[in-house]
């Protein structure tokens, strides 16, 4: 561990705000990249399932 205490870890010398905002933005971007295709797939499969059902009735 390179920090004395947890509050030291949060403050990061005087760079806490920079480091934590950079990491925060990174995780938001990574999450967007996972969630976008995930929900797009779900939406598409539901829509196709409806189409298949419609076509099987007619």
């Amino acid at each position, binding site marked *: 561990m*390179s920090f004395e205490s947890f509050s030291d870890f949060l403050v990061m*010398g005087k760079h806490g705000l*920079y480091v934590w905002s950079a990491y925060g933005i990174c995780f938001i971007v990574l999450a967007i990249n996972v969630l976008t295709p995930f929900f797009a797939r779900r939406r598409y499969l539901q829509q*196709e*399932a409806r189409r298949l059902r419609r076509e099987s009735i007619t």
Partner: protein
Amino acid sequence: MNTSAKAKGGMSWAWFHKLGSPKWFYGISGRLLPWLSIAAALLIAIGVVWGLAFAPPDYQQGNSFRIIYMHVPAAMLAQSCYVMMAVCGVVGLVWKMKMADIALQCAAPIGAWMTALALVTGAIWGKPTWGSWWVWDARLTSMLILLFLYFGLIALGNAITNRDSAARACAVLAIVGVINIPIIKYSVEWWSTLHQGATFSLTEKPAMPAEMWLPLLFTVLGFYCFFGAVLLMRMRLEVLKREARAGWVKDVVIKHLGHKASPHNGAER
């Protein structure tokens, strides 16, 4: 002799033709995806905890240098992604391979996100280190051009409704734009710059101690696995959309239906 050589040639190229088959791709990528996701999550988690809490602070930059563990992987991926797209462009133009077009167009938004991430984390790192969020420096400017190339590719792909023309236009733009990649890479050597040189190189040992660059190795590998996983997710959806009329895609949809709405599905049968 001649025929056996031909047969052998046919054998070794079989994987290449298989790769071009959407159905085969869908099956193999489905098996690969969980492993890539797990590897990405583990590598990034280890690299981030190690880099944030255990790596020693830089003797000049203090703790702000910890941004490196996100900035460098994002920047490397932004460039690798573009090179991959240019290769896909060549494969798509020369062999008319559908999967190459799909890979090219699915990779563009991911590459754009990574470039934006590299620019933003770089700006946040630049403020305490150089005293400025942004400088019109060769490295930063060429990265900004990369971002615009990605935007151009996405816009071009969306603007052209004919699928073959869109694929051809995107392939050409990807191939022409790849000239920017060596400019980004060597910008810190060709022009005087504030930006520091590369941390990793294949021929030399890193200038920083192992407890500083090892976490970086983890996040870099983690980002590559992450890229593989999210690219496969996007490509699999695109394959389903393009092959919507194929029997195997209907099976996928029905299987998905059975997963979540079993009573309804049972009634229908």
